[in-house]
């Protein structure tokens, strides 16, 4: 019996090999031997430019003005938008700054584009958008719950804030609570003392009494790579879902009062639909990240091109990396694109960690991101 079967050779199940030799494992998947006739696929079975299946669901949280759950593969982001009021009387520098910005505002009321300048500055100056991302939800083993936000969480929060500001997604006009000052007495009197009393009253008797502040809180419930894309999609979906109650200044109570009727609540009118897509670069050379960075000279470039012609690929650009792939790559590219009237607009382009992606490849990535924009737009519109 002992002689009937030789002792089995030392074999490892794929999952263990993936843990022991992650780089070789992914490389073997991406560059299968030519004889095997297998397509070059990632370890997770996706094409290099394929994104994970995405789903979105909005409006399921009761205590929010707008909420969304976005799942990108195994990464899940929950975003809740809560609106609170910031009365202008609470803003320390309001009476000073308002006079100047009000003047600018009035000059440009006819032109929408110029008006945007005043909009943007008010949202930024008064911190009307407050995004915070939390990773300490037990989403992945590395993050200690109860600890202050990790560097990654802080950086993601600031990227989202920066993107909210630079895309000017939310219009400041949606966040303003106006008050029509009743005109006691004739118009002639108004004109006389308007010059002394400042700019406020000249603005057709309208003044801003309060601003809505949107607290955008993102909880990453499950993290399996590419948190930014999921978080940004969740923010976008939640903002599209957000309704602000109709608010007015109640002169008797001297406070801003809201109407609870749903029919009177207004949705935010967002500017465009910027959608983020992230990529990472996987190098066949395992030690690429360790070497001193040298710009490849012309000879080397020629060699790489020759290799590529012969079908020997040295690097792969992987769309929507999962946690496993993120750990194996140094270079990241993040593109945020929008499409307006059939034209792709690059809203943000960020690339760091290496030299591999050049202008030509970035152009291809923009095309891939534009395709992603189309598919994600459908998903966001359906939810």
């Amino acid at each position: 019996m002992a002689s009937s079967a030789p002792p089995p050779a030392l074999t490892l199940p794929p999952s263990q090999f993936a843990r022991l030799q992650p780089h070789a494992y992914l490389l073997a998947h991406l560059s299968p031997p030519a004889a095997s006739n297998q397509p070059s696929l990632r370890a997770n079975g996706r094409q290099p430019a394929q994104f994970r299946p995405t789903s979105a669901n909005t409006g399921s949280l009761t205590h929010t003005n707008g909420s969304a759950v976005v799942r990108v593969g195994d990464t899940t982001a929950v975003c809740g938008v809560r609106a609170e009021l910031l009365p202008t009387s609470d803003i320390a520098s309001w009476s000073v700054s308002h006079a100047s910005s009000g003047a600018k505002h009035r000059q440009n009321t006819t032109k929408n584009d110029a008006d945007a300048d005043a909009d943007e500055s008010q949202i930024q100056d008064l911190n009307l958008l407050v995004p915070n991302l939390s990773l300490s939800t037990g989403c992945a083993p590395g993050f200690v719950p109860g600890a202050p936000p990790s560097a990654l969480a802080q950086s993601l929060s600031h990227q989202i804030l920066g993107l909210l500001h630079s895309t000017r997604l939310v219009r400041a006009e949606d966040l303003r609570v106006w008050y029509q000052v009743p005109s006691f007495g004739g118009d002639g009197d108004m004109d006389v003392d308007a010059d002394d009393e400042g700019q406020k009253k000249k603005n057709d008797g309208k003044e801003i009494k309060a601003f809505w502040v949107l607290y955008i809180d993102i909880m990453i419930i499950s993290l399996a790579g590419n948190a930014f894309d999921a978080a940004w999609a969740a923010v976008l979906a939640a903002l599209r879902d957000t309704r602000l109650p109709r608010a007015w200044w109640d002169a008797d109570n001297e406070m801003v009062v809201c109407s609870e009727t749903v029919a009177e609540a207004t949705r935010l009118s967002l500017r465009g639909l910027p959608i983020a897509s992230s990529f990472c670069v996987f190098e066949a050379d395992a030690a690429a990240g360790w070497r001193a960075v040298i710009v490849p000279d012309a000879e080397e470039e020629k060699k790489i091109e020759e290799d590529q012609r012969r079908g020997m690929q040295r690097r792969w650009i992987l769309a929507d990396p999962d946690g496993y792939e993120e750990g194996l790559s140094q270079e990241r590219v993040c593109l945020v694109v929008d499409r307006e009237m059939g034209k792709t607009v690059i809203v943000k382009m960020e690339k760091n960690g290496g030299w591999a992606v050049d202008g030509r490849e970035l152009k291809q990535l923009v095309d891939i991101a534009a395709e992603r924009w189309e598919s994600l737009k459908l998903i966001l519109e359906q939810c």
Partner: protein
Amino acid sequence: MTDRRRINGPPSGTRPAVFASSLKSASGAATERPRRHRQPNELRKIFLKTGLIPSASGSAYLEYEPSASLAAARSSPQSLIPPSSALKLACTVHGPKPLPRSATFSPNLVLTTHVKYAPFAARQRKGHIRDASERDLGVHLETALRGVIVAERWPKSGLDITITILEAEDDRWWGDAPDSHDAPWGMMNVLAGCITAASAAIADARIDCLDLVAGGVAAIVSDDAAAEEGNSSTPKLMLDTDPAEHKSILSACVVAYMPARDEITEIWLKGDHSKASLGVDDSSLGHEALIDGAVNAARGAHTVLVEAVRESAERYAGLSNSDS
């Protein structure tokens, strides 16, 4: 001091929106307190699913069925003020993993629990840093689970249990909020949910347990419908109470209960139950009836728990078959 690791809002702070209907106190009866449509011993349905978070060794997501009033408000929204809310929480288990080098030797599994409300979980915005009530919930949860886990099987290791509450139960009906200084009854429902979800997540992580522990809530409420009719309001025992649906809760009780061993690992009883004599012929003390009610509620939750854990075991069996 401002939190420099987070993005802070306007330095002067912001105020939550005040609705016009809540200002008119005299005619404020436009919206009514949601009514309980369930029988006194009828529980809300529980949605419990394991394994939604693949990076954790065990995970569970728990959701209570929205009450009838909330479901109606969802399907045809009239008011921006939600009548009540339904519990939603996610629980992850990481470990057993080696303790850090700096930790002292422990012959047992070291259990740590974190309960955190999402900032948008409750009617009032919650802070990012855990407050005292959240820490309190964590301690209660730890005592409930410590009696269940067979801790001596994992010496020198730690187990982290993290619960994120996405939507909490209300402490009382929102219309009562300004003038009542009631105990936070919603916390007790949250704790019961935490216990059930954590139990499922621990089973999903394949940690040895004595039994599946389930949480249950019962409360003695004085029914306002009887009070309106002029009767002396007889307090009643209700299982799985939604605090928004009752005018006054006299006392409430949460238990963590193991049905197979008929053991209680955690009990939290709050309020005045001495006055409550439940029925004329029932001479049993209020607190015993209350604990029995909570145990019955836990038995109900246990049936859901068993289904969820079976599903998790089947998934695991399928996974290991396909692997080899």
